[in-house]
């Protein structure tokens, strides 16, 4: 059966559901299609952190801060418990070199308006019990927070549905039809949907969707592995990262070619505790295609790193591990907005590990762009058009 929609959103993760919600709020008639279930990709296989202080000072941090503002009242707005908690967070620093880097990082972040401070070991230990004595300090920001990413997806989707959006699960997009350089319809395994606007929020699968309109984007899956512990009484104060995490995140080149598994796997600490008491211990960053298996090497390497920084974890039981694929982009920034050459085709993908943090703001930006043609800030640096040359080069090679 053929149906029509004002806008079709592809992808039922934190990005797609957020966009569906914000568009519905503006009165748009949205159909969201998801090939599996809500939160089945990266949004269901990630940590729970909304961390501001890990973001590069600049547009990245600015968006994260705007997003954090929306999160504060999102539970009420959606009338859905997304398990939001303003926990604060810290980045552990192991040596003088790291301290040097973090000092600079903090200075720039402060300039943008983030509340963040450098703590010495004693001050850090007061906030977080069980730290290893060799640490030299930590940065701390009271603005970091937690949510349950799956609940965020559910909350956005259900709120969107209440506003009239249609959420189609188990619905895979198989083709996008265009005519005279403009989107005409989206073909799914359950039928065709006529539309003039389609939003590609397919995360790591965004390149597949782009290929349907003959477009190429430099998004690639970057695997992260996370270990889950048994629920325990409150042990982790908020989000606890390590300075190495920041290095691993922004310097993919350094990580790949090392002999040391910790460096090669891009291991950096990411600790947080859910409302139920489970501690999530991450993580690593590997380019292994779409392989979502976990590995013994990553399990032991991540846990060794984590227990070196927070020895108290040793007494706790691990109950599960999982792997998720982050949609990596070469400059660490998502692709947001229209593309050249295909009218009505809008990108909203490539958030790598920041999808949760940037979910609400992405929904707002995309809905602004569609209804008003502009948004609150200059997001030209996020435009997919910045990679046009990349695409051409790629086709040339």
């Amino acid at each position: 059966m053929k149906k029509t929609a004002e806008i079709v959103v592809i992808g039922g993760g934190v990005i797609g559901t957020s966009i569906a919600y914000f568009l519905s709020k503006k009165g748009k008639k949205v159909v969201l299609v998801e090939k599996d279930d809500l939160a089945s990709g990266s949004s269901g296989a990630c940590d729970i952190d909304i961390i501001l202080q890990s973001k590069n000072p600049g547009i990245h941090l600015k968006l994260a801060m705007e997003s954090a503002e929306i999160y504060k009242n999102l539970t009420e707005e959606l009338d859905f418990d997304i398990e939001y908690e303003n926990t604060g967070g810290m980045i552990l620093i192991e040596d003088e070199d790291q301290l040097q880097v973090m000092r600079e990082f903090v200075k720039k972040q402060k300039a943008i308006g983030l509340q963040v401070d450098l703590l010495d070991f004693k001050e850090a230990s007061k906030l977080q019990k069980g730290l290893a004595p060799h640490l030299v300090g930590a940065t701390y920001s009271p603005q970091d927070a937690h949510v349950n990413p799956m609940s965020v997806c559910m909350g956005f989707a259900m709120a969107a549905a209440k506003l009239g959006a249609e959420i189609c699960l188990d619905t895979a997009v198989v083709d996008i039809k265009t005519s005279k350089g403009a989107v005409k319809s989206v073909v799914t395994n359950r039928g065709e949907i006529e539309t003039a606007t389609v939003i590609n929020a397919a995360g790591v699968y965004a390149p597949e969707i782009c290929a349907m309109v003959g477009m190429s984007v430099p998004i690639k899956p970057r695997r992260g592995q996370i270990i889950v512990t048994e629920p325990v009484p409150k042990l982790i104060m908020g989000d606890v990262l390590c300075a190495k995490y920041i290095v691993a995140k922004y310097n993919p080149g350094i990580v790949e070619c090392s002999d040391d598994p910790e460096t090669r796997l891009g291991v950096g600490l990411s600790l947080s505790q859910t409302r139920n008491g489970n501690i999530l211990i991450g993580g690593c960053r590997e380019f292994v295609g779409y392989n979502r298996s976990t590995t013994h090497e990553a399990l032991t390497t991540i846990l060794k790193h984590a227990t070196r920084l927070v020895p108290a974890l040793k007494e706790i039981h691990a109950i599960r591990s999982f792997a998720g694929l982050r949609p990596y982009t070469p400059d660490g920034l998502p692709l947001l907005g229209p593309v050249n050459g295909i009218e009505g085709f809008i990108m909203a993908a490539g958030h790598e590990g920041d999808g949760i943090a940037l979910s609400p703001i992405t929904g707002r930006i995309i809905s602004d762009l569609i209804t008003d043609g502009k948004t609150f800030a200059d997001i030209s640096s996020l435009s997919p058009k910045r990679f046009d040359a990349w695409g051409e080069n790629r086709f040339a090679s």
Partner: protein
Amino acid sequence: MRIVHHPILGDETRVCNAIITVDGRQIPAIEGEPIAAALLAAGIKKFRETPKHNKPRGIFCAIGRCTDCVMIVDGIPNVRTCITPVRDGMIIKTQKGLGEWSEAR
């Protein structure tokens, strides 16, 4: 209750050679038997209270899978008593919710 006489297995030959302390009460036990067995032998059926609704729980699967029988053993919560062997002098506490970590640990 311990089974002293048994038509197939014969009479019990082991003797209680350990004392464990459960919520402050000392009970006799056999080294190496699962903690849960020693508790049942002493008539203790409630091992913990659940986190959400504070409901009592005891032994359910006895093979370490269901995790219903977890208690705080020597200061560590979530210890599966059905597969953890008794050692003399163990301190065991009924686990309330997620339990608490003993500072002494």
